[in-house]
Every structure is written in structure tokens, then in C-alpha cells.
């Protein structure tokens, strides 16, 4: 049954991807990409990767699509017919594809528990991590503890994206525009519902943040969801009002603080005599240390991701607002 679902989803995915190639309407392309992303999240669930699915759904189908639409608002939705030949790209793609197909010929069978992937390193994560790290969610254990340095790198990548976006697009509070003018002012229903829903979304973000040790979720997903709540606020009530809730300067400090919070756990463990990010050393009991360490670093991840995603949205939408004024 699961295989059948998988097959159908993969076929739908392939159809979506092929459609994206030939469509000229960029708005439809982006919506299809959102669908593509969401379908792949479903496949991830089907393949037991619940954390990944969660992230893909919130990031690929959520934030990426929103940012792409924001860009489209500034660049126009029609792709012009291009005259240059598509022969060379096709050859390159065919060669690459052939190389990949050649590579699959010796690939181990799908789902076989005896595959080398499941043999060498992974068994320790599965068997020992509940004892060594003390969390039921192995993905969180590996993410935050065994491969914590990767996750630090990931947070730094997010931070670097903020630096890049800020160096390209400056966030400006619009002075010309009256706060009451912007947003979807006449949509009274939306205002009421948004007021009702936004606190619930933030509550859900907090749940995802702190429940990540036990179920799917964690700092990254929580940060994105919380940012989504404020993006909704900004969309419904207007950007100036959102600035009044959380200003850009404050977000910059938050983004830096998240990275520093993460790193400070590592520095503290160095101070205590362990290696960088060795949570065993930060409390008297190794298990307690792991627990504190993971909670703090997940918080760091959540803060940075929230701040960066929201700032990036601010940057894009303040461009849109400025071009509207013009």
C-alpha cells in the first residue's frame, strides 16, 4: 500500500516538474513549485522522514513560495519567449542523467535493511542515542548532538543569507505611506480571523520548538512557523504595523543573538573542559547536560531562523511597498 502511494505521488511529482519546464506564466510556475514541494513533503512522510517533511512543507511550500511571489510582484509574471537554442542544455542534461542512471545500476535495493547505509554508522544512532542523548526523537539527537557542528553551520548559513539579503535590499520604514492605509484594510473578516489565528500559530510554534525532542519538530520549523505568524500579520495589517510590533533593528540583534547563543553552549563546554559542543560536560550528569545543551541550541536555532525569515520578508515586501508608491 505504502509503495503504491509512493508510486502515485512520484508520478504526480514528475508531472508537476515537467509542467514547470513548459509553462510561460511565472505565477503558475511558482504555484506549481509550491505543489511540487508539498508533494515531495508527502513522499518524505511516506518514507518515514517526518522531520524533513515538516521542514519541506514549511520552507519549500511556505517561505520559498512566499518569497518567490514577492519577487514576482516586482518583476512581472510573464516569461518572454526565448529565441536561443535549447540544444546544448539538453545535451548537458542528457549526459548528466545518463551518468546518474549508470550510477544507479549498482545501487542497493530500495528499503533493504541490509543496505550498507543502514550498517556502519546509523545503528549506533538508532540503538544508543536514546541512552546516550536521552531523547526519543533520534533525528533531534543526531541533529543537535552527534552532528551539532553541522547544525551550527546551518544556522550560520541562515545568518549569511540575512547578510546577503540586507546588502542587496535595504529595509526602510515607509514614511510616505500612512500606517492605516496599508494592509488589507477593507477585509474585516480577515482582520477578525487573523487576530484569532495569529496567537494560535505562535502557540503552535512554541509547541513545535519545545516538543522537538519527542516528536517531529525543532528550532528550525518553529522559527519558520513563528515567522509565518508575523508575515500573516504584516500582510493583513500592513507593514508599518508589523514594524511597530517587531522592528528591523531588533530582528538583527535577535539573528545575531541566536547564533551566539548556539555557540556559547559550545564555548561553555570548552570552559568545562570538553570539546566544542560537548554537552556531556555542561552539567554534572551527562544526560542532563545533553538535555540542557539541546534545549538551548534549539532555542538559538529557532531565534535566528525566526529573525532571519522575518527580516528577509520585510526586505522583500518593503521593496514592493516602495515600488507601489512610485
Amino acid at each position: 500500500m505504502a509503495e503504491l502511494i509512493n508510486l502515485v505521488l512520484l508520478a504526480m511529482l514528475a508531472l508537476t516538474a515537467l509542467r514547470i519546464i513548459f509553462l510561460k506564466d511565472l505565477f503558475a510556475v511558482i504555484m506549481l513549485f509550491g505543489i511540487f514541494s508539498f508533494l515531495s513533503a508527502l513522499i518524505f512522510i511516506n518514507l518515514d522522514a517526518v522531520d524533513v517533511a515538516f521542514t519541506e512543507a514549511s520552507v519549500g511550500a511556505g517561505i520559498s513560495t512566499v518569497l518567490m511571489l514577492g519577487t514576482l510582484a516586482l518583476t512581472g509574471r510573464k516569461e518572454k519567449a526565448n529565441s536561443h537554442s535549447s540544444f546544448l542544455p539538453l545535451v548537458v542534461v542528457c549526459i548528466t542523467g545518463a551518468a546518474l542512471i549508470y550510477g544507479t545500476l549498482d545501487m542497493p535495493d530500495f528499503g533493504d535493511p541490509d543496505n550498507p547505509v543502514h550498517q556502519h554508522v546509523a545503528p549506533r544512532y538508532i540503538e544508543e542515542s536514546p541512552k546516550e542523548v536521552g531523547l526519543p526523537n533520534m533525528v533531534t539527537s543526531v541533529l543537535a548532538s552527534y552532528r551539532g557542528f553541522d547544525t551550527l553551520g546551518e544556522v550560520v548559513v541562515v545568518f549569511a543569507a540575512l547578510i546577503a539579503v540586507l546588502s542587496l535590499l535595504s529595509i526602510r520604514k515607509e514614511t510616505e505611506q500612512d500606517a492605516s492605509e496599508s494592509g488589507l484594510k477593507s477585509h474585516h473578516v480577515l482582520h477578525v480571523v487573523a487576530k484569532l489565528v495569529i496567537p494560535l500559530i505562535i502557540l503552535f510554534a512554541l509547541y513545535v520548538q519545545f516538543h522537538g525532542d519527542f516528536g517531529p519538530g525543532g528550532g528550525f520549523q518553529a522559527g519558520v512557523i513563528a515567522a509565518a505568524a508575523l508575515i500573516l500579520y504584516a500582510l493583513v495589517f500592513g507593514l508599518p504595523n508589523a514594524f511597530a510590533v517587531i522592528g528591523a533593528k531588533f530582528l538583527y540583534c535577535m539573528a545575531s543573538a541566536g547564533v551566539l547563543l548556539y555557540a556559547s553552549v559550545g564555548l561553555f563546554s570548552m570552559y568545562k573542559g570538553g570539546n566544542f559542543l560537548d554537552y556531556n560536560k555542561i552539567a554534572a550528569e551527562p544526560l542532563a547536560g545533553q538535555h540542557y545543551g539541546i534545549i538551548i541550541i534549539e532555542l538559538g536555532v529557532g531565534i535566528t531562523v525566526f529573525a532571519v525569515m522575518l527580516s528577509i520578508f520585510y526586505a522583500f515586501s518593503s521593496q514592493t511597498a516602495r515600488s507601489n508608491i512610485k
Partner: protein
Amino acid sequence: MLFLDVISSILLISGVFFGLSGAIGIFKFPDFFTRIHAASITDSIATILIVGGLLLQTSFDLNTVKLIFILVFLMITSPTASHALAKSARHGGLLTMAEAKEKKQEKTG
């Protein structure tokens, strides 16, 4: 247990039926307002039916509570989204079929 399973299956199947009919409606109906009408109404009923069907499959634990939350959330957001879409279309100057016809007649007549 069998009884619950049967009811749950009926709910799920009818939910899927409504969902599908909504999708067909989006393709078949002629203009924006009729399409959104088809999509939003069937969407709501399909949500209730499918989540209801799933509720009967749980053993009344934490998952039940989560499903109820999902249902409530969808019941609030999905009609709101349809409403906002329709209203924006209206503000943007999109006419219903009847109005467009009237306008056309005015022009010609």
C-alpha cells in the same frame, strides 16, 4: 470495532467524493466566482468528512485531540481564504457572469 470502521470508511469515501467533485468543478465551471464557489463549499464539507472519518480511526487519545484542532483550524481558515479571494477579485473589478452579460447588453443596446 467493525461498525466504526464501516462508518469511518463511508465518511472517508464521501469526503474524497466531495473533494474530487470540487476539483472537477474548478476545471469545468466557466468563471472565477463559480469556480471558487465549487472549490470552497466542497472543500469545507470534504474536510469535515475526512477528518471525521479519521477521528473514528483513532483510539481516542492525543491524536484525537490533534485532529480536532486541525478540523477547527481548517474550518476557520479555509472559508476565510475563499472569502478573501472572492472579495479581492470583486475589489479588483472582476464581474460575475450575470453582471458581465448585463454590461455587454448595455453596451450593445
